[in-house]
């Protein structure tokens, strides 16, 4: 079969890690793939695990009640209509409204638009006018709607474990404050998250002036200290980089996952994709060199990828500098960069990279990742200067908030230990959970008599604090926020605080003894800034979602101080002597742990490993072999005599000799969803090894069940994902279509129900060349279409419900695997196999080419699912929403039926959105415009990889894409005539490199 594969595909395809050799590991891997037939056959109740997880538990009398409702269907329930007593202005019942606001995340404000139905926010979209979003979002923004309605959010102030009121808190606080004021706040310390809110910053300075001796520390486990310190070294002052990826022909990323993990990632992705989008073989594409340890989604987009241990990434940077200065007459401030000892292939890689960079001066960019030490960032900046990229590609602004978080938290802990702190206020963070392990924050906290903890949840820190205060969700309160480039937005509430929460702003005003509500505070602040408060300006700010009149940061011109940079390099710690290294990085789903109680995020498969409801120690096949473990085995990792057990996950294409530990799991007080999910890797994260640390890893005892949404990692030589190089594309634009040698399909059954000639005829294009696999579409769909989550155990049984899934296949060499992503929504086949097997007509076709699914007609024979070659149909095997708390219902989209158990469901191209726009157009007696109807997945996609529209309208974007040579449909030989089609993926390799 293998030769055949090679023929079929542009590059050899393989099935799973060990298939190539059929080695013993392969058999082991196979075991995980076909589990014992009777495993779980006799577990009773069938879902013990879920039963324990009450939210998902389903056993019991639910069925009975359901059956009863089924029977009682005949007599009519008395339904009430409760109209407003007085109609709120500009609200029309039944018509959703959209408001612009801003989401504070990763130390910046992400501009969003929130859809609200009769006053309850239900959907989040990007704000097209906001520079950090341009209309797209990442999954976290989408999922924060569920966070708002999380029943586990804390609702009351608490002293110890006991419920209190705000008044009681005030009476407790007042004497303490007066005492503190007397001593100018000595002993008072604040620990907060870095904020991008000018108003809040002003308030903080106010506090510090009221309590001059108080200390203020910012700490976030995933921070940008390295980058900021790097800019200090290189440019002598804390500086922020604004990178225009759409201006770069060559991108060299030194372990920087700029398409997802770095702040402003949505904008980065948009700009990056702009240079990957090709309309014809004459178009050019950028080229991405990725030097990294983990297999990130940015890495999966790379044209050339070098997998290397985290500590070696810096050495590569140094080698690059050497090569550029020595071989490519690039002036690096007269500093001579000693040649670095690296293996020949690596040096060859570096050499080509240098060559490519030198050929694209002023059109290239070198970026270092947040996990790399400062000197690497400094060197990257220096290189950009030397290559003349500063200006055309990268611009500098001041760093508005250069907190030194790592030293900060350590220092704070120390003074807590020495008793200098007797009143600690934790604002938003969760230090007990995520502070470096070596400072033992919990123990230090015990030494502080009074600890007040403001948080969205009564979490690990609040549990240890003397007082816990409930915080408002960002959709509940007023504030503001700065985009990455400084553009300001007003954060306006979409709903009154659901519980007794207060925002940090309000709490701080409490400490100032001048209680005020956030709205007043924000207006006051802007009044101060504008000289005089202007209502019209305010309204425009609210309406547009950005404060008018260029609020962006001023650009700063800085020249690098090379001597400082090289000095930093001379101070650089030597790479650990050939031991294993661990690399800590935020998780693709729960970030630093703050989304741990968000079932949407927990059930969202990791874009690369496809693991749900867990994290794991990621390692390459070689590393796993050397440790004698296979996928799912427990390994014990120890860093600086701290040890933990964690499941190993074998990832092809990862750097050997290193282990990647995603953060954010193993929470103990996250809530009913997040408690005890995964492994708490913070246990190994110390002040000296916040990002990279030498470690010893050995096989542990036992096996752990890692659950993936995709058990099978390879294409089996099937032309499903079609990709080629730019060269191949230029030689033969039709290459993608020719990858399938199947004969043209002919149908004997000619009398079709519809001829699909009358416009509109809906279709969807998915560009595999720009899809970065970031999952934003999956979450957007979940939010738009009320898609339920089912829990780990059910996902293990392949019962996940996502309407759009992103298949990830590994391709190429086993060790140096490459990856491809393929989003799979319903194909809306014109000859849909699912339709003619349904005995009750529950799924059938509409005149405009939708493959409709009528939930109220479905009896659940599941025949359609069997007969769907794309397996995009999802069945409600159980009452997934049985134990769903009432409040979650507020997150539901009222335009989409909530499906009951026993019915099939699937993607409908967001038929509710189509209908809404269709009716709007009809009422206005006009035709629909192209781009007027936008599906949820399309709207969220940061790279505009998904385009929806009318195929019959020759001018529509989707029709133009369909006409491209790269376009192909999945399994066309089945003659299903899908409406969803793909644009083949292209890679843009450096040809000399290919030869090398």
């Amino acid at each position, binding site marked *: 079969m293998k030769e055949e594969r090679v023929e079929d595909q542009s590059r050899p395809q393989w099935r799973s890690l060990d298939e190539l050799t059929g080695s013993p590991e392969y058999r082991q891997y196979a075991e995980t793939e076909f589990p014992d037939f009777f495993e779980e056959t006799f577990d009773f109740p069938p879902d013990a695990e879920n039963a324990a997880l009450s939210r998902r538990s389903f056993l019991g009398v639910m069925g009975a009640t359901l059956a009863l409702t089924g029977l009682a269907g*005949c007599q*009519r329930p*008395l*339904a*009430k*209509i*409760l*109209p*407003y*007593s*007085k*109609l709120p202005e500009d609200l*029309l*019942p*039944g*018509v959703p409204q959209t408001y612009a606001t801003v989401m504070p995340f990763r130390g910046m404000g992400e501009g969003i638009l929130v859809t609200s139905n009769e006053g309850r926010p239900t959907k989040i979209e990007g704000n097209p006018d906001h520079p950090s979003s341009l209309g797209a979002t990442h999954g976290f923004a989408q999922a924060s709607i569920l966070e708002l309605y999380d029943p586990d959010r804390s609702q009351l102030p608490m002293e110890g474990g006991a419920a209190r009121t705000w008044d009681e808190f005030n009476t407790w606080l007042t004497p303490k404050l007066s005492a503190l004021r007397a001593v100018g706040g000595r002993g008072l310390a604040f620990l907060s998250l870095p904020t991008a809110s000018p108003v809040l910053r002003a308030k903080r300075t106010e506090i510090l002036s009221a309590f001059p001796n108080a200390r203020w520390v910012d700490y976030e486990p995933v921070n940008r200290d390295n980058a900021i310190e790097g800019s200090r070294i290189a440019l002598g002052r804390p500086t922020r980089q604004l990178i225009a990826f759409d201006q770069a022909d060559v991108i060299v990323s030194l372990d920087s996952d700029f398409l997802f993990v770095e702040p402003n990632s949505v904008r980065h992705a948009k700009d990056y994709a702009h240079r990957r989008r090709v309309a014809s073989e004459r178009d050019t594409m950028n080229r991405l060199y990725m030097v990294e340890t983990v297999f990130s989604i940015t890495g999966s987009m790379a044209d050339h990828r070098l997998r290397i241990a985290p500590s070696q990434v810096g050495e590569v940077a140094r080698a690059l500098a050497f090569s550029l200065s020595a071989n490519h007459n690039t002036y690096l401030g007269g500093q001579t960069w000693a040649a670095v000892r690296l293996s020949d292939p690596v040096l060859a890689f570096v050499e080509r990279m240098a060559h490519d960079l030198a050929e694209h001066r002023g059109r290239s960019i070198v970026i270092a990742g947040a996990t790399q030490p400062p000197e690497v960032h400094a060197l990257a900046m220096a290189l950009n200067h030397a290559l003349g990229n500063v200006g055309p590609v990268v611009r500098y602004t001041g760093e508005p908030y250069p907190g030194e978080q790592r030293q900060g938290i350590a220092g704070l802990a120390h003074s807590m230990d020495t008793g200098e702190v007797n009143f600690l206020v934790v604002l938003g963070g969760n230090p007990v959970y995520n502070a470096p392990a070596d400072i033992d924050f919990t123990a230090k906290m015990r030494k502080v008599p009074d600890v007040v903890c403001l948080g969205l949840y009564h979490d690990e820190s609040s549990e240890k604090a003397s007082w816990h205060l409930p915080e408002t969700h960002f959709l509940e309160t007023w504030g503001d926020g700065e985009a990455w480039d400084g553009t300001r937005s007003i954060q306006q509430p979409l709903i009154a605080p659901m519980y007794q929460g207060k925002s940090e702003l309000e709490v701080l005003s409490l400490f100032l003894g001048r209680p005020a509500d956030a709205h007043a505070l924000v207006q006051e602040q802007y009044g101060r800034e504008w000289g005089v408060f202007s209502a019209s300006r305010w309204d425009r700010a609210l309406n547009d979602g950005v404060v008018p009149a260029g609020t962006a940061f001023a650009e700063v011109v800085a020249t690098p101080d090379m001597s400082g940079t090289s000095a930093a390099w001379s101070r650089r710690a030597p790479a650990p002597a050939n031991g294993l290294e661990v690399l800590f990085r935020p998780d693709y789903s729960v970030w630093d742990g703050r989304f741990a109680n968000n079932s949407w995020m927990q059930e969202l498969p990791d874009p690369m490993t496809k693991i749900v409801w867990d994290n794991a120690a990621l390692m390459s096949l070689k590393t796993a072999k050397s440790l004698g473990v296979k996928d799912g085995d427990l390994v014990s990792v120890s860093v600086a005599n701290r040890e933990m057990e964690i499941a190993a996950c074998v990832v092809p294409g990862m750097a050997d000799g290193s282990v990647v530990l995603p953060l954010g799991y193993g929470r103990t007080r996250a809530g009913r969803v997040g408690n005890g999910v995964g492994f708490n890797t913070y246990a190994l994260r110390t002040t000296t090894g916040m990002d990279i640390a030498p470690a010893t890893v050995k096989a542990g005892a036992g096996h752990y069940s890692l659950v993936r949404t995709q058990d099978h990692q390879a294409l089996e030589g099937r032309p499903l994902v079609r990709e080629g190089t730019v060269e191949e594309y230029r030689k033969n634009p039709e290459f993608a279509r020719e990858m399938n040698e199947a004969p043209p399909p002919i149908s004997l059954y000619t009398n079709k129900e519809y001829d699909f000639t009358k416009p509109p005829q809906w279709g969807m294009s998915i560009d595999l060349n720009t899809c970065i696999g970031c999952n934003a579409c999956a979450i957007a769909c979940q939010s738009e279409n009320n898609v339920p989550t089912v829990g780990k155990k059910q996902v293990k049984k392949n019962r996940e419900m996502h309407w759009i899934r992103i298949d990830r296949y590994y391709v190429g060499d086993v060790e140096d695997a490459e990856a491809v992503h393929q989003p799979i929504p319903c194909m809306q086949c014109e000859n849909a196999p699912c339709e003619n097997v349904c005995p009750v007509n529950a799924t*059938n*076709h*509409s*005149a*405009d080419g*939708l493959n*409709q699914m*009528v*939930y*109220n*007609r479905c009896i659940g024979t599941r025949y359609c699912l069997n007969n769907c070659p794309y397996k995009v149909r999802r069945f409600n095997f159980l009452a997934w929403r049985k134990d769903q708390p009432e409040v979650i219902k507020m997150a539901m989209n009222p*335009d*989409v*039926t909530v499906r009951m158990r026993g019915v099939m469901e699937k993607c*409908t191209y967001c*038929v*509710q959105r*189509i*209908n809404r726009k269709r*009716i709007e157009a*009809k*009422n206005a*007696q006009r035709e629909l415009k192209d781009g007027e109807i936008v599906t949820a997945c399309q709207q969220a996609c940061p790279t505009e990889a998904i385009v929806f529209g009318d195929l019959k309208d020759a001018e529509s974007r989707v029709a133009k894409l369909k006409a491209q040579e790269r376009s192909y449909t999945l399994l066309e030989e089945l003659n299903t005539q899908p409406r969803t089609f793909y644009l083949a993926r292209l890679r843009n390799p450096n040809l000399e490199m290919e030869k090398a």
Partner: protein
Amino acid sequence: MIFPKWTNRTPIPVAIGGGVLLVLVVTAFAYYISPYSTQVGYAPTQPVPYSHKLHAGALGMDCRYCHVAVERSPVAMVPVSQTCMNCHSVIKKDSDKLAPIRQSVETGMPVAWVRVHHAPDFVYFNHSVHVNAGVGCESCHGRIDQMEVVRQAKPLNMAWCLDCHRAPEKYVRPPEFVTAMGYVPAGNQLDLGRQLVKARNIHPPTDCGGCHR
């Protein structure tokens, strides 16, 4: 002999009689469970004895005076209490029948009207598109102007909906007559209807997705 002779004659009558009985029972049951018996005529008592007969009939108020959203929104919108007070702050301003309304306006708490016309949750009916297309209020709600207490006039079952969706020309009116009660088409409804359908480009969906999502 076990059985008397007459038993030989029993089978045929039994067969026929049984058959007839079966047919009767099935028909009766079918009607009993049909919307014609379960839905039509449903007329719950409302918290306020509001008379459409008086307001829409005798006083000839336009439907849209109270049901303001009907042309712009999926829901026709049961009027907010304030709407009542627009007149009743002057007329009959201390009638005890209106007590709940006044109270609602003072307290801001809604008046709990009882829903009369109820579409299942999986049906997404949109008033605006029907009204704008020229489907008269009367066509679905009957002679509201003659109802002291609002009662459901039509079965509102799917077959009934499809009757119009498949042949709108049988029912559509010129837009100006949408709220008219007891409307009689000028001339032949079918001819008029066909013109309207053509002129206003009315093609109601008969696909499931039109109403079920």
